[in-house]
């Protein structure tokens, strides 16, 4: 008996060790591609979602948006195989007949209208309906595969209003709009895209499998049999997973990790691509001394942005001049950013009445008040280091900055309530529509609205006129001219000082083929991800 128990124990231990010892590479099944990111997805529902990676997985894997973007960021047909723009007042989309929901039902114009109407219902509190579709008034089904959208006003980039995926009406109708955010569907979606939803374990993984019926016209079935999207919150263990073969794509790489990825170029590949995140210093334009454009311009000229990019971003960033990213088709081309020039900054500050009157090296105004303000930032390593560098740089021109790094929510509350001098923060563009962001951030109509995005209380008639013109211009060359002028005014006025666009960083295993990334997102080629023989 004793011997028997011991033998059983030995056998169990041996089996355990055998199970443990295997090569981790082979643990990952041949046709299963594993990607990992730091935070969990929010519900998979176009109408209620506001999270970027969730949106990408919906647009590229689970669902089929009306339109997609090509390599040149031009709109291309997707679910809508063709369209007619009716002047600048409406658009008619003709949908593909071969796209089906994963439960077998056809995807029709009724689904598109349902999604649009729900997004436009105020109770759903939809980002899509309230912000991205603000210029679209109504949808009308012409037949099961044809839908007509009428515009609220002529506006720029009208086709780009439709970069979103319809939701299935037959599974979501009957849910009260205010409850849509809590619909069980969002955690077990029935999609229409190249991958079907299989499983979602909170904070652990989302599993997708290939949809064998995905239409040939949209690229046919995906390359990978299965995609596992793992959630790994800590960046260094995340990268360790990539190096030890546990995952094939690391979505969240930090600038200081790029060197170790490049050292292991046999195993891993770094993806550095232009991002959609711009960092800026928001001056409180309603408060002295920032109500004086000379002071704002002087402060902007005293900040050495290239030094920050080189030292803190390891070169993975570019100086920014506005909210329009340099890679965008409507970017107005080579506009010189306000140059780093401490002498010019000093001259401007003196002209504005700020000189060193008591010989302490810091500037004061005629009333003896020092040029001193609080620079607010939320607590993360990059932001903390940037504000400290800005503090040191501004000291060189006699400006005293008190750095205040606080928890994100607290920072956001002060920023939203306009209770700050200056703030260092970032902003992510949700889509490629150029006009919406300047309006929210800089238009004077938003300057007094409580909790609006114009938290710096920017009021500038020239900017207002240009933003209004840019929103309604429908001709691309006209738009480019307007945004050029807009950007030039920004350089001069510096209502906000845009510092840099960061390059997004990700890494993938050398075994994984078909990966490429650009501003369209980390998951844009998920359809083609496949494991090679290497």
């Amino acid at each position, binding site marked *: 008996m004793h011997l028997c128990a011991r033998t059983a124990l030995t056998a169990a231990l041996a*089996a*355990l*060790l*055998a*199970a*443990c010892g295997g090569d*981790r590479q082979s*643990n*990952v*099944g041949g046709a*299963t591609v594993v990607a990992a990111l730091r*935070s*969990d997805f*929010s*519900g998979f529902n176009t109408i*209620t979602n*506001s999270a970027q990676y969730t949106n990408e997985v919906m647009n590229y894997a689970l669902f089929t948006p009306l339109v997609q973007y090509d390599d040149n960021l031009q709109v291309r047909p997707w679910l809508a195989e063709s369209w007619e723009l009716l002047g600048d007042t409406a658009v008619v989309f003709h949908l593909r007949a071969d796209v089906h929901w994963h439960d077998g039902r056809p995807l029709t114009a009724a689904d598109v209208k349902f999604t649009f109407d729900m997004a436009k219902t*105020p*109770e759903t*509190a939809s*980002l899509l309906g*309230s*912000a991205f579709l603000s210029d679209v008034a109504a949808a009308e089904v012409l037949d099961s595969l044809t839908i007509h959208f009428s515009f609220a006003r002529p506006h720029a980039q009208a086709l780009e209003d439709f970069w979103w995926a319809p939701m299935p009406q037959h599974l979501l109708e009957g849910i009260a709009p205010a409850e849509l*955010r*809590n*619909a069980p569907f*969002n955690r077990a979606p029935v999609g229409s895209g190249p991958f079907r939803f299989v499983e979602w*374990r*909170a*904070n*652990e*993984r989302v599993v997708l499998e290939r949809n064998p019926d995905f239409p040939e016209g949209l690229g046919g079935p995906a390359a990978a049999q299965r995609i*596992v999207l*793992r*959630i*790994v*919150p*800590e960046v*260094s*263990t*995340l990268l*360790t*997973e990539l*190096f*030890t073969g*546990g995952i094939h794509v690391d979505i969240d790489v930090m600038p200081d990790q790029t060197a170790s990825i490049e050292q292991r170029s046999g195993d891993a590949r770094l993806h550095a691509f232009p991002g959609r995140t711009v960092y800026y210093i928001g001056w409180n334009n309603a408060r002295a001394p920032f109500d004086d454009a000379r002071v704002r311009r002087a402060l902007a000229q005293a900040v050495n942005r290239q030094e920050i990019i080189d030292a803190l971003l390891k070169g993975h960033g570019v100086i920014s001049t506005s909210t329009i990213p340099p890679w965008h088709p409507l970017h107005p081309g080579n506009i010189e950013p306000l140059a780093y020039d401490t002498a010019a900054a000093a001259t401007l500050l003196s002209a504005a009445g700020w000189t060193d009157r008591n010989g302490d090296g810091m500037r004061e105004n005629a009333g003896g008040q020092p040029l001193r303000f609080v620079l607010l930032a939320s607590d993360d390593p990059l932001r903390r280091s940037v504000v400290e560098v800005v503090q040191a740089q501004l000291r060189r021109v006699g400006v005293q900055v008190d750095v205040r790094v606080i928890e*994100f*929510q*607290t920072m*956001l*509350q002060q920023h939203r309530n306009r209770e700050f001098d200056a703030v260092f923060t970032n*902003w992510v563009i*949700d889509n490629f529509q150029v006009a*919406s*962001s300047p309006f*929210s951030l800089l238009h004077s109509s938003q300057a007094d609205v*409580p*909790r*609006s*995005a114009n938290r710096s209380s920017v009021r500038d008639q020239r900017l207002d006129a240009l933003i209004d013109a840019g929103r309604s211009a429908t001709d691309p060359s006209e738009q480019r001219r307007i945004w050029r002028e807009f950007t030039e005014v920004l350089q001069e006025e510096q209502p906000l000082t845009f510092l840099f666009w960061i390059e997004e960083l990700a890494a993938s295993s050398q075994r994984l083929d078909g990966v490429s990334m650009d501003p369209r997102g980390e998951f844009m080629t998920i359809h083609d991800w496949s494991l090679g023989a290497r």
Partner: protein
Amino acid sequence: MSAYILRRLLGAVPLLLGIATLVFFVLDLAPGDPTAFYFSPNVPPEVLEQLRINYGLDQPVHVRYVKWMSEFFTGNFGFSFGKGRPVADILIETLPNTLILTGTSLILVFVVGVAVGVWQAVRQNTLADGLLGGVSLFFYSMPSFWLALMLVLLFSLKAHQWGWPVAFPPTGMTSVDYDALGFFGRLGDRAMHLALPAATLTLALAAGIARYARGQMLEVVRQDYVRTARAKGLPEHTVILKHALRNSLIPVITLLGLYLPYLFSGAVFVEYIFGWPGMGRVIVDGILQRDYPVVMATSFLFAVMVVLGNLLADVLYAVADPRIRYE
């Protein structure tokens, strides 16, 4: 005994209510609000307002408190703002994972700590005793996040790189092909994933227990009854393990109750570093996002577990020491 347990449980009710109330109002005082996850500047202010209405945040705090309490007592923990799903579902999914991690660590802390302490005591003032004492002190004084990252570096990254026979997975609770494994395969897979996080949680606490157990054992072996046991000719291991050990355990059991909160708070960052899908991460995300229903439910649950853990420690006294009786 059962009357004592019942009394303690009843006594815990006002305590837990007090904790829940305190957490509710402290959370309300904290700046920020749950709609902040919509921080894209493109969101019109009226959408934020609509969300606040959907979440019931337009109500004054006392109304929300009464509503939350009454729902809570009927077993309704509400919906998570951030996740859009019932809080109860989140707890059912993540609590067992935290219990696996903390439960394993608790057992290991106790077993390893006492074993090392007793072993040291028996070999007092030898080289082995000194070495183990030094090692314990090292683990005891190391910051846990550093220890965690070193374990990953050595037993995962370097072990893989240098081709060691066993390299532990750095994150997760199971492999992606877990469902395809057989019984032993699954067991092994889980053990492999549990190894590093459990070791991180265990090492520092076990080192502390070992030092206590050693000191306590040294004191007990000098007692008269131990000398009597030796004098009547009992073998040394019987003397130590049967007669001395039990008495030396009493203060260690106190520590066990005191360590529970450490274990749970330690689990929060261990879950973060090792990507363990437990409740600690839920609570941290909940706090950062001001996801009030989630924070309320999880902190309440942690409080319940700490209270129960202390009760368990008190009950274990009576088991270890027959002189202690609860009437």
